[in-house]
């Protein structure tokens, strides 16, 4: 394994990212924040189609999604469908530890980047394939966006539960916000890639087949476990027997009392009304069986309460309660500030804004130090300085639209 010259976990590791999917790009983001050098390959011209995916940073029409998942990377434009483009990609792979690719298996054949072809003389290279349904099996060439992968993994079928479902029982399932299933696939890829790096000195390189569906099925494993217990989960049956989302006078809270003392705290929080004194409520199994009756009472009570009061008093009584908050409250929260999880980045044409750094904190802090530039912004650095080509070659390739 390459020596580390600074203290970040993946310092010195070179990743060539050839991805158009959110999952692949998100894996690249995490690896970059862990210290790897990530070189993103995009199509010449307009670059990665994700640059045009909502949500947008209005005014300049920059994609907030693209920018969020492509920090700390270099961008090189290469048309890998051309002979020269493919040759340059192969040159880059010789300098790389990891090839992160989400090309469909049938397209890999057409392009000449099958695992066998890439293996060639790249003995230590890890080929990390990130695809919606993996690189093997009858669905491996299937197309899928976030919505499709979320539903392929089992969780899509089971959303929503609780209040949202009771209000709209006849609507189709609703997705989790944003690119949840894709980010899960990307994080799963990171686990696989670092595992491959850990054993690279023993076995050399290898092909790692990462499926976004597999990652989401793993995340949803309790549903498979329930099936083994003879229960096929559905949206209605999976709702919490009581608690969950409660509407207050000025917003929503989540409530979950799993343990006896938490239930007792809730009773106290409600001011010990008459109905809570019934004998059957003392038994947690009975409460589970007759949850609907409890819900009717606590929902009526919650309507007259203020969110902040409930959360503060609830926590003091050890009742697990939380306020449903949006980006505004998250960014203003004392906890957010104290944890230093956002960093200032300069967005061309917009100015300095805060971006969430990473969902992990190492002893050696991860840094946001490169905001996504235009496609091909690092062509000269990578192709000339790293690979040793001349400026005149680069100019010729640019004229030929190879780069």
């Amino acid at each position, binding site marked *: 394994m390459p020596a580390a010259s600074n203290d970040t976990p993946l310092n010195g590791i070179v990743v060539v990212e050839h991805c158009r999917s959110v999952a692949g790009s998100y894996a690249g983001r995490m690896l970059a924040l862990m210290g790897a050098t990530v070189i993103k390959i995009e199509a010449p011209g307009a670059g990665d189609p994700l640059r045009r995916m909502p949500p947008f940073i209005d005014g300049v029409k920059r994609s907030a999604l693209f920018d969020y998942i492509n920090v700390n990377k270099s961008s090189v434009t290469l048309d890998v469908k051309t002979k020269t483009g493919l040759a340059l990609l192969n040159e880059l792979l010789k300098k790389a530890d990891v090839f992160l690719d989400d090309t469909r298996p049938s397209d890999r054949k057409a392009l000449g980047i099958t695992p066998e072809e890439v*293996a060639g003389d790249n003995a230590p290279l890890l080929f990390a394939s990130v695809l919606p349904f993996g690189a093997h099996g009858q669905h491996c060439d299937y197309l899928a966006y976030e919505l499709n992968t979320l539903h392929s993994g089992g969780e899509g079928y089971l959303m929503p539960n609780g209040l949202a479902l009771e209000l709209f029982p006849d609507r189709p399932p609703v997705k989790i916000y944003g690119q949840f299933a894709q980010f899960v696939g990307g994080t799963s890829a990171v686990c696989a890639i670092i595992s491959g790096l850990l054993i690279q000195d023993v076995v050399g390189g290898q092909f790692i087949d990462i499926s976004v569906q597999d990652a989401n099925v793993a995340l949803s494993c309790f549903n498979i476990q329930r099936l083994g217990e003879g229960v096929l989960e559905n949206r209605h049956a999976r709702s919490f027997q009581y608690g969950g989302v409660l509407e207050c006078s000025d917003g929503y809270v989540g409530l979950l009392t799993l343990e006896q003392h938490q239930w007792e705290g809730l009773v106290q929080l409600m001011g010990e009304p008459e109905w809570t004194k019934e004998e059957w409520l003392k038994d947690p199994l009975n409460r589970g069986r007759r949850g609907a009756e409890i819900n009717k009472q606590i929902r009526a009570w919650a309507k007259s309460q203020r969110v902040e009061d409930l959360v503060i008093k609830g926590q003091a009584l050890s009742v697990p309660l939380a306020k449903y908050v949006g980006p505004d409250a998250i960014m203003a929260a004392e906890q957010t500030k104290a944890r230093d999880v956002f960093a200032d980045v300069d967005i061309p044409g917009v100015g300095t804004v805060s971006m969430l750094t990473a969902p992990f904190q190492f002893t050696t802090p991860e840094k946001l130090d490169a905001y996504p530039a235009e496609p091909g912004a690092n062509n000269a650095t990578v192709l000339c300085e790293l690979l040793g080509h001349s400026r005149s070659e680069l100019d010729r390739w640019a004229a030929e639209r190879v780069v």
Partner: protein
Amino acid sequence: MSIDKKPMTNKPLQGVRIADFTVHAAGPFCTHLLALLGAECIKVESTNRMDVFRKPHPVYGRMEAASFAQVAANKLSIQINMKHPRGAELARRVIAISDIMCESFRPGVMDRLGIGYEALKAIKRDIVMVSVSACGQTGPDRNYRGYAPLFGATGGLGTLTGFEDGPPVEMRHVMDHGTGLTAAAAALAAYFRKKRTGQGQHVDISAREVAMSFIGDALLQFAATGHSHGRQGNDIPGMAPHNVYPCEGKDMWISIAVAEDSEWAGLTRAMGREQWLSDKRYASAAGRWDNRRELDKEISEWTRTSTREDLTKLLQKHGVAAFASYHAKDIVEDAHMRSRGAVKQLTSPEGETRMAVGVPWRFSRTPGSIDTWTPKLGEHNRYVFGELLGMAESEILELIEDRAIY
């Protein structure tokens, strides 16, 4: 890179030992993934601090204890009573022979027990300690209690999930497990660094921050513009059609997502509605977005008389991203999943069989695997205390008698 040779017997984390003090869902999912990768994971519980998967869970509608818990597979089980005066000492001895220590106590509890990071560093200089908590190890909310739906609320993911005209939605176990997955990635990175530099560290995972990371684009949009979209149902602005449509059968659905004009053309061919290509309501992506509710109705009428399977095949053939909305039974019966080993049948020591989720990655040379069933509480006391720590049988018996091993 070598792909033609047979897989080797090595697993990526062969020889790595984990002292696992996590309970509930998030932490155990982290160590579950590391155990699938070959780590020897020693799960530490006690009769008075048993993991919840061993108990009934009435709020979830589970009235009996689970007979098999996926996330406990491949793990060893030992008992240490942390409330016993000798508990901390036993814990320290297990940690001293481990490479990674994972825990999900409330912040500060490990320090009080005498097994916080500073104390551990003194006995095992290069230990990688991974802490998984609701809000992180620092900050004013560090003692905040939480379960998945609650950090889904405070981290914004549950707030932004739901129908446009409806309430927020509870995040379920995928939120816990998403936290565990993130913790596993970070633990692997920290261990990789340790292997290269000889230095351990304390990795801090906050479930709230994991939830925030799933809405990172909305947070960036808000920071740059002062606003963000609220709940949007199944919409992704600019993509239409983009929804879940009813199919033949009760509660059967298919997800269909169209981004590019070529995909739209494929959809019209699959539906036999090529006239839509020149219909000004739908001819452009902007038109389809503006008229998406009407489009959804027309597509629903078309999908509702066919099976999910037939529609998926047809639409994929025409280059449209479409997939059935899978429930658990669909997943375990899916030929594709089975062929990948992503779901597999397991057999208990008593001969009971059941389907479980397999390893979510296929390594060409170093495959992971599920090898063992959920261990019984304390099943590996003798192996860990006797064989690994070299304690005499009489000493183990004495500790059991004294309820230190309990």
